[in-house]
């Protein structure tokens, strides 16, 4: 639109067209935003319709069965809970420790910069890669404990071809390598969510104002006293929120655990962390791949409903923690 045209009395029309364009664009924006919401609604409704009727107590009390109406995912639920507990147990101290180091202690040098870049890059590594890492390192121990490996020969270790080197520390059974056990699953999941946990913890720690640290130092506290008695308690709600969100991501992961060698059919409840396991998402995936529609369409949907309810509960807890305990400085 040039000045000449405006002078020629077209201004009103020009303005009207612009307003119309603005309105059309507004509608396009609204529709685009709705796409995501509609998809979410359709997804939930579809799953509820297909799986609702199959959501029976059997699902919680039975193992997988050849008869769909008697099949459940008891071992998957147990496996998910145990793997998740192990993941929480390992990733909380490691993640918070790393975050405290990077926020409160780390000098500004190349090593720190490298660790920072490294963590953000790890956050983008596909989950299957963590599965392969866990398979090689934790599950197989680089093959170092096979009867014919140089390590076993050199140390003359009494290894079992199937379970590797079994020994006991303080009366607790230990195995090397870890095999396709709950422990391996928990460790791989820990590495998977660690970048997320570290980033969330750092943000929570950074949100604690410096005046609190200064006051504590002024009273003669040592750096660790400042961190453990002032900074961490203040940052804890934020850290826990991030932690729960990361765990809920781990809860839904199937791929890395499939690669680690988690089983699809586990007709027992695990007794120790050395037992084989399955988790809910793997059980669901297994049902989806079976040919009969009872498994493929209905039972899997019922399993998904259970998984989604658990995830929803975890997310609600995270939101609650954030709203209830988070301080505004």
């Amino acid at each position: 639109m040039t000045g000449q045209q405006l002078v020629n009395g077209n201004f009103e029309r020009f303005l009207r067209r612009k307003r119309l364009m603005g309105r059309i664009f507004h509608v396009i924006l609204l529709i685009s935003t709705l796409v995501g919401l509609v998809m979410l609604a359709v997804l939930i409704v579809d799953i509820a319709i297909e799986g609702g009727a199959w959501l029976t107590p059997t699902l919680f009390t039975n193992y997988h069965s050849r008869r769909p109406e008697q099949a459940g995912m008891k071992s998957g639920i147990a496996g998910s809970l145990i793997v998740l507990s192990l993941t929480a147990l390992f990733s909380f101290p490691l993640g918070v420790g790393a975050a405290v180091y990077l926020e409160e202690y780390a000098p500004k040098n190349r090593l720190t910069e490298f660790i920072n870049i490294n963590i953000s890059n790890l956050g983008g590594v596909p989950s299957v890669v963590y599965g392969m890492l866990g398979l090689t390192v934790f599950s197989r121990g680089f093959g170092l404990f096979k009867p014919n490996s140089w390590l076993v020969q050199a140390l003359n270790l009494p290894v079992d071809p199937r379970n590797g080197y079994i020994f006991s520390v303080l009366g607790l059974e230990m195995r090397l390598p870890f095999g396709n056990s709950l422990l391996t699953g928990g460790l791989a999941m820990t590495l998977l969510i660690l970048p997320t946990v570290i980033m969330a913890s750092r943000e929570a720690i950074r949100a604690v104002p410096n005046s609190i640290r200064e006051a504590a130092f002024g009273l003669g506290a040592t750096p660790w006293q400042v961190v453990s008695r002032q900074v961490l308690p203040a940052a804890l709600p934020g850290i826990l929120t991030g932690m729960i969100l990361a765990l809920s991501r781990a809860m839904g992961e199937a791929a890395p655990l499939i690669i680690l060698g988690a089983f699809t059919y586990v007709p027992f409840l695990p007794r120790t962390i050395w037992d084989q396991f399955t988790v809910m998402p793997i059980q669901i995936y297994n049902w989806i791949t079976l040919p009969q529609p009872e498994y493929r369409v209905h039972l899997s949907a019922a399993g998904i409903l259970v998984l989604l309810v658990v995830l929803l509960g975890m997310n609600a807890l995270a939101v609650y923690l954030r709203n209830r305990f988070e301080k505004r400085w």
Partner: protein
Amino acid sequence: MAGLSRLLPASRAVSSPDDQKGIFSRGLSWRLRRIREQIIKASLFLCGLVSVLTTIGIIVSLFGEAIGFFLRPEVDLYHFLTGTMWRPLGRPVSPDNFGILPLVNGTVMVAALSGMIALPIGLLTAIFLSEYAPEGMRRVLKPVLEILAGVPSVVYGYFAISFITPQLRTLADWVNSVAGTAIRVDFFNALSASIVMGVMILPLVSSISEDAMRSVPQALREGAYALGATKLEVALRVVVPAALSGILAGFILAFSRAVGETMIVAIAAGSTPRVTLNPLSSIQTMTGFIVQVSFGDTPMGSINSQSIYAVGATLFIMTFIMNVISNYIMRRFREVYE
């Protein structure tokens, strides 16, 4: 780094009232405390180092096994990178059966199609949330959209195969009957997986783009309004260009996420590695192949179980490059506005 290091010169321990009780006790407790502080600092440093060890572990385990794969006489790197046939179970075992291009083709096709869905919709959603939506609406919409990112990928896979695929087939039948065409939609197909994956990465695109747009200084918008720009012009000609680097970083990150996504493609995209541009046919992606091999029982050390490491290493390199580019753009962009 904010925090203690800025407040305190190096690791100088601070004396506390306990230390004032006399020369001997002060020296001992001071020293003990100092040692304790050093031990704590060292163990926190070790926690930070775990991430570096993880990276080393990934590189050693992936590339170590991948090298073992390429050292086998039946395969070679040249055929692996240029071959157009992926038949790990084909007999006789020959380099011709281990060309990764079909898997790369499948991966890139699914990621590109899901990008075509997620990028425009995500960007428009971000513009709406950042520039148009009232604050209250934004506060409701944003977390609801982020639920989409929290839904497990197994669930999306189920949705693709039990809902999207049947709809696509019905649509194809309808088009065929109306237009007399012969469109065939395989039960497992790339399009269905792509649509669902587009929905999954949508919040990633919209979140990062919205953050980028919100950090555009208000003065730029006000300047444009003062020159007589409409809201549409401010959004499209001022805010989006100013936030472009952040938006681009988000796009790349979303694409990388789509490349690495596993369960959706393992469930809905099929297991037929082929070089094709037809999204309605069954294909296989790199991640899909890895899961297929792991889900069945493959003996350790067999060529099939080793091939997943070669595929995994390729996948890792692809996503790594994209993440580095995205991080680089993000970093540069932050320097401009903070």
